[in-house]
């Protein structure tokens, strides 16, 4: 695994996401309250919906994204679907350094 620079934090809208293309794989990088940044494989555990396009809410451990296709909620910190749904999206580590977002891919 390696750390890669993605973009300045300000390029990700608050409560929004950007899509990162990593050699053909789409990774969604989310920004939640309190300038916390999370990254998940951009595919919903339900039917592969693009999570990057969902509504982001909450912060820290409780941050989640609501999938735009059928409304599953996915925890951003864990990648796990919220009960009663079950499933998991692969998560990637992130960090912010001097206003830049980094991703461990």
């Amino acid at each position, binding site marked *: 695994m*390696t750390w890669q620079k993605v973009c300045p934090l300000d390029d990700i809208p608050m409560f929004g996401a950007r899509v*990162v293309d990593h050699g053909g794989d789409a990774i969604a990088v989310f920004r939640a309250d309190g300038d916390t940044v999370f990254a998940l494989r951009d595919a919903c555990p339900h*039917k592969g919906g*693009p999570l990057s396009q969902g*509504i982001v809410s909450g*912060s820290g451990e409780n941050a989640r994204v609501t999938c735009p296709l059928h409304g599953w909620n996915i925890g951003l910190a864990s990648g796990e679907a919220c009960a009663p749904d079950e499933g998991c999206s692969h998560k990637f580590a992130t960090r912010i350094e001097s206003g830049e977002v*980094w991703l461990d*891919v």
Partner: protein
Amino acid sequence: MIKQKLVMVGNGMAGVKTVEEILKYAPDAFEITVFGAEPHGNYNRILLSPVLAGEMTLSDIMLNDLAWYADNGITLHAGRKVVQVDRVRRIVRADDGTEAAYDRLLLATGSNPFILPVPGKDLPGVIAYRDIADTEVMIAAAASHRHAVVIGGGLLGLEAANGLILRGMDVTVVHLGDWIMERQLDRPAAELLQASLEAKGMKFCLGAQTAELLAVEAMAELGAIGVATSAGQSQRSVRVGSDTDARVAAVRLVDGRVLPADLVVMSAGIRPNTALAEAARLHCDRGIVVTDTMQTVTDPRIYAVGECVSHRGVAYGLVAPLFEQAKVCANHLAGFGIGRYQGSVTSTKLKVTGVDVFSAGDFMGGDGCDEIVLHDRAGGIYKKLVLRDDKLAGAVMVGDTADGAWYFQLVREGKDVSQLRDHLMFGQSFAQSHLGDAGHQGQSQAALLPDTAEVCGCNGVCKGTIVSAIKEKGLFSLDEVRKHTKASSSCGSCTGLVEQILASTVGGAYQATDKHAKPVCGCTDHTHGEVRAAVRELKLLSIPAVMRALDWKTPTGCATCRPALNYYLISTWPHEAEDDPQSRFINERAHANIQKDGTYSVVPRMWGGLTNPTELRAIADAAEKYKVPTVKVTGGQRIDLLGVKKDDLPAIWADLGRAGMVSGHAYGKSLRTVKTCVGAEHCRFGTQLAMDMGVKLEKMLFGMWSPHKVKLAVSGCPRNCAESGIKDVGISGVDSGYEIYVAGNGGIKTEVAQFLAKVSTDDEVKEMSGAFLQLYREEAFYLERTCHYVERVGLEHVKRQVVADPARRRDLYERLLFALKDAPDPWAEHQAESLAKQFKTIPIKAVLEENRHDLAESVSA
């Protein structure tokens, strides 16, 4: 923060409910002191009847025991009656001298039983039926005495009589009226009820007035203890003062009859307990007079709730309306200042096991009413439904009350029942199955289900579990049942059934919530209506401001509440409130419709369904240039480019924009299309220029956000080739002008649009349709389409505002035009570099194995 002091007088059901609500809304706002004349915590007064009947015990009916007060930091003075309120110094004083100062005072003193002013009323053995003490006296009397007379054949009197019979007494009910429960039942219903009570051993003296209550020595003189003397015989009675402890022995009626009675229960009505308030010079008129915010009209620091209150001239004597008052009162005490109490429709259920009685609303009928009656004397069933103006105004039922909750709901919601009318009498399941609408909602007969029947399939909850939770935990509302049992908390399809179980278990105390009275989502306790009102009244301009003002439970809301809040803000304060793109569903945020594979569809607007070679050429060019896999003509008379990559969106919009095309908003809770037919422009039958009118309307409404999507159509004649009959607003040309129809829907459940008005000019079409849509924008809840909105508020309401009142119509229309002024073209806006950037994917190279080490080092450096 220094806490305000809240003092409550009266530790009963309405008052404590208010305190519970305050603790929910603003747990730290008050230091609370409670005075209660009874030496107990708060108990469920309505369950005194099952206690008397031996079906429950006192400990079963405690709602808030003493520990509850301690746990919540409330000072309780139990067994102390407040005797004075000093409004100048803001202090209350109790009979033992205890004082408490207040910033806010809440009076919840309930009511007093009405004691007939007859000789002998103070004798031992003569009681009212109001509290635990009375119940205990009755239970004791039943153990050692034989004869009881209950004065008053109302709800309480009959429940008391029933309990005493079950405890082995010989009971006669003396009632002034010609039939029992005349305030809740009509004569045939009462007669049926009387017959079934007589079968249980209850005796009745109807049309009978009590003259006096006789004590033992008086009876001795009559020489007739225990035997009723024949009517007409003139008897001399001795009046017994309260200085002797001789017990009551008989009741003498005005017609001379004498009934033996070792126990007399006075149950001849209640009077709001206003003594304390009157002494404090608060305005009282058959109750402490309060406003819609539950404040006394005399002193805004003083609130009042419960049976002691007179609201709009009505004093309520049932728990459900009192709890509604409590909620509103708590909301204002907690400083939110939304919610208004507007009065309640009540329903009655008699709690005598084995005898089913239900009544609600105006059950007597009369002028201007229709009645549907089913009377099966032999079967012991009587049902009467009263209809007025196509609405259910009231219902009364004896023998079979399974559909009571459903009828009550129809009465409260004031729904048009003309479609159901033929089937109404046969109950909910039958009526709805005939409308093809049975769903999962309303299996009635909840009362008949066995305890083992599974009610909630998602969480595996049986009826028995629900019923015992309701009884043991004192639950009154659907939400409470959900929290405690999990029933109906997942998919919600069993909600109707759970509500019925609740209604049949707690009777009149059931707090029915109609679906619009539910909170927006789990992030708040506020309903859509309350949030709307707050946005308007407090002039809130951003989502964080709403969340702060209404104490949202989550810091940033969720995907359910944020889009609703965003809509309420921008529709209430156009050009002022902040429009938050991140609180919109992706389609509205990206101005294109997301597809199952994550690509988008692009639908350029074709005004009124019209296009031209330049536009078609631009569409063809764009489809080729961006390799659009599917080009389709939509059901909304325009062309859909499906399968566009998100990264390409800004560029394809720019190309289409150069040909003069703008967004079709095919994705939004917004204006969609105005479909037109060829109209008088070409058609041999056309009476009006449908295409022209359609284009005018679509241009006028461009960029209109709405609670749900809005579709219009204009047809040139009543053949309606543009399908005006199933649109939110459908216009049909006729020779002399236009007919305007509203609230149609061609989607999930087809609804035929209803006639709103006939007008003659194009400008009138614009004003009338515009005013209707603005009313919808201002009053509908988020995600409520016009057909559902009009069903909720009634077409008459809409007509009053939009058709009958020209000034109001113009106001609405002008507000719409103001909101739509300078509506931006979202596609053009997103050409700007800063916005367009969000659509771009950020590439990062997949790192080769040998480079990894270097990279990691450079990062940590």
